[in-house]
């Protein structure tokens, strides 16, 4: 009998707990001392989170923010999109999140994030670098702030070139301005000649390797002024894109590009680390790893231009911070105050100096004085970037473009036929949306 009473009591207690937990979600949004919790899902690493928490502490100490507290929650960058999609589907999304640049358009078109114009963004818009900010601009409205930006540049293995007596004079930069870049190939034509010489001297060693995804290829397309979409029109079949693709295909055909894009091949990054590929396109996220962890001796040059040295360009990568619009207005406003504070010139300069990253705030550029030539090279390359195409789903665009480009690189399709196929399918996708 006693046992039965105990079981019944436990069942009733469990039911009450479930009922209470189900019905009291609002209490989860406030702290014990009554402060409203703003949840910030981010994908920063350990070093970055330390600085983030410092910024949060400073922001919370300001009198106008006394009734709020920011709770940072780390989620893995790999898979952050499905995690956020699922959370939004079941109505359990955060107040703010740090997302890949390519995700902003999807969030905006699915009406999940706040239009920053309604929160006063127009007055401070000019503070941010144009190219990364453009990734947040959807249908003329801004739905996110860039918090970290990057691009790719040309990495070369100094040890390999030194062994062959071909070491180019390292490019010299001064606070983002290229001072001298003479001996390194400045155009793709010069690059091909340089790679041929390398191949001859190295007895057929692989000089250069690329990835085949649209984002990586944009760096090369941009050096020819090629565009993928213009407004609601797919313009990938322009002569500029065809020229860029024909150049890439000829590099592979002549054995000057290793075929790092082929299924099953060693990726450019792995090959560079193992000393197999002498040159690759790479971003600043690997600087610390290459330099400090792997002790590689490498240099960084600007990506060769399509026709002249001035045509050098790159893609835009990085992340943006967004505010979800399913939360009360007061919380959206507080989130906006926090994110604009987090990305202001002073905090950005502090962030970039401590973490060796590129600023996204124009004001921070004046405050950051890098001594590291690699960082300075990236700052120079960053200034030459061009905006990425803004489409509802960049992943879907890649699904269409990447296979077609692979057939062009293989030589099983001509560049013009390949881009014509891409245009048909991308245009259908744009029209569908």
């Amino acid at each position, binding site marked *: 009998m006693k046992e039965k009473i105990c079981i019944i009591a436990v069942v009733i207690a469990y039911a009450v707990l479930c009922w209470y937990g189900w019905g009291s979600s609002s209490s989860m949004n406030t702290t014990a001392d009554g402060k409203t919790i703003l949840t910030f899902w981010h994908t920063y690493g350990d070093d970055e989170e330390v600085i983030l928490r410092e910024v949060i502490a400073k922001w919370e100490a300001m009198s106008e923010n006394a009734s709020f507290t920011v709770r940072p929650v780390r989620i893995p960058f790999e898979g952050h999109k499905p995690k956020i999609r699922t959370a939004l589907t079941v109505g359990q999304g955060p107040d703010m999140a740090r997302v890949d640049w390519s995700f902003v358009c999807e969030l905006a078109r*699915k009406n*999940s994030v706040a239009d920053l114009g309604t929160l006063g963004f127009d007055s401070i818009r000019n503070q941010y670098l144009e190219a990364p900010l453009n990734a947040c601009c959807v249908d003329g409205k801004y739905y996110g702030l860039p918090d970290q930006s990057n691009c790719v540049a040309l990495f070369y293995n100094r040890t390999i070139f030194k062994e062959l007596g071909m070491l180019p004079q390292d490019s010299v930069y001064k606070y983002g301005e290229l001072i001298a870049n003479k001996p390194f190939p400045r155009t793709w034509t010069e690059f091909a000649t340089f790679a041929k010489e390398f191949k001859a001297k190295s007895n057929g060693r692989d000089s250069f390797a690329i990835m085949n995804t649209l984002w990586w290829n944009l760096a090369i397309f941009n050096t020819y002024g090629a565009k993928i979409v213009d407004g609601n029109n797919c313009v990938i079949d322009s002569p500029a894109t065809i020229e860029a693709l024909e150049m890439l295909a000829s590099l592979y055909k002549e054995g000057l590009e290793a075929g790092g894009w082929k299924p*099953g091949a060693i990726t450019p990054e792995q090959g560079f680390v193992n000393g197999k590929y002498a040159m690759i396109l790479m971003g600043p996220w690997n600087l610390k790893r290459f330099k400090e962890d792997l002790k590689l001796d490498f240099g960084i040059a600007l990506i060769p231009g399509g026709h002249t040295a001035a045509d050098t360009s790159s893609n835009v990568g990085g992340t943006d911070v967004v505010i979800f619009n399913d939360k009360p207005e007061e919380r959206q406003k507080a989130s906006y105050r926090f994110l604009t504070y987090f990305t202001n010139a002073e905090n950005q300069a502090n962030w970039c100096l401590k973490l060796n990253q590129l600023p996204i705030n124009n004001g921070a550029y004046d405050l950051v004085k890098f001594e590291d030539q690699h960082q300075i090279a990236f700052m120079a390359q960053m200034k030459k970037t061009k905006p990425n195409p803004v489409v509802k789903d960049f*992943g879907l665009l890649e699904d269409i473009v990447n*296979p*077609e480009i*692979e057939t062009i690189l293989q030589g099983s399709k001509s560049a013009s036929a390949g881009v014509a196929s891409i245009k048909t399918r991308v245009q259908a996708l744009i029209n569908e949306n």
Partner: protein
Amino acid sequence: MAIRTTKDTVVSWGFLSPFMILFLVFLVFPIFYSFYLSFLGTPTDFSLANMKFVGVQNYIKIIKDYQFWSSLIVTAIYALINIPAGIIVSLALALLLDNKLFGKSFFRSAFFLPNILDMLVVGVIWALIYAPKFGVLAQISSVFLGENNFFNTTGLLGSPYTALLAVIFAMTLKGAGFGMVLFLAALQNIPADVYEAADIDGANEWQKFYLITVPLLKPIIFFMVITGIIGSLNAFTEIYAMTSGGPQVVIGGQALGSTSVAGYYLYKQFDAGNYGYAAAISYIMLIITLTITYIQSKLTAKKAGAKK
């Protein structure tokens, strides 16, 4: 103990209910919900509640989707090679280890081991073995064939003509251990006097194998064919790890993934947020699986009936 009273029934259901609840929520409900989902369009926001009813449009779209049909053909090729190869290798290993061999236990464990490894891990290892220039195969082939050989320049996964075969080879070796265990168990259940009778009748080894062993192993072969078909239609991880659906091949002016099997194509649709379309594809695949299994079981039953 037989159930005699209402109380017994209630108690039985009480004991069954934990499993039944999980079964209904996580297996039965998704089956019916995904069928319902297959009649809905792509969501315009992140709420599944706002998906529009589109009738049979998703199914009509499938009929026109050449990439889906291409992936189904690739799946058929994958199944047609992978299933017989898996059965032959498993049976060969089982026959080998059914003899009195030195280190038999070790080899049984060694051949079974890849089967318990994660598919992704096995896929990545094989991708490294096949990798041109730096992979094991490329290194070995360069010693015997020189630098300018196919394994070193293109690699098995780099050519549309060999990529699927390379995946099949890796998966056959991975799965052979499981088939081997099944065949071994069946082989040990074949009575020795059947072979003795065959010896008296003057049957040679091949005749004993073909006329006694194989017919008595038919239930296992049937089981492996059915699980192989289901496995082929669900194949995803090996493709994801080794080729991502490539390399591309141009057919009728269109770039098509030479290893893009139906399971991988389904994943791509789901990943892109086309839940309704992905659900419709999964139902088409379910119908295909059920049809093939039904025909197979009917044919087997017919043959068994004819022999009686």
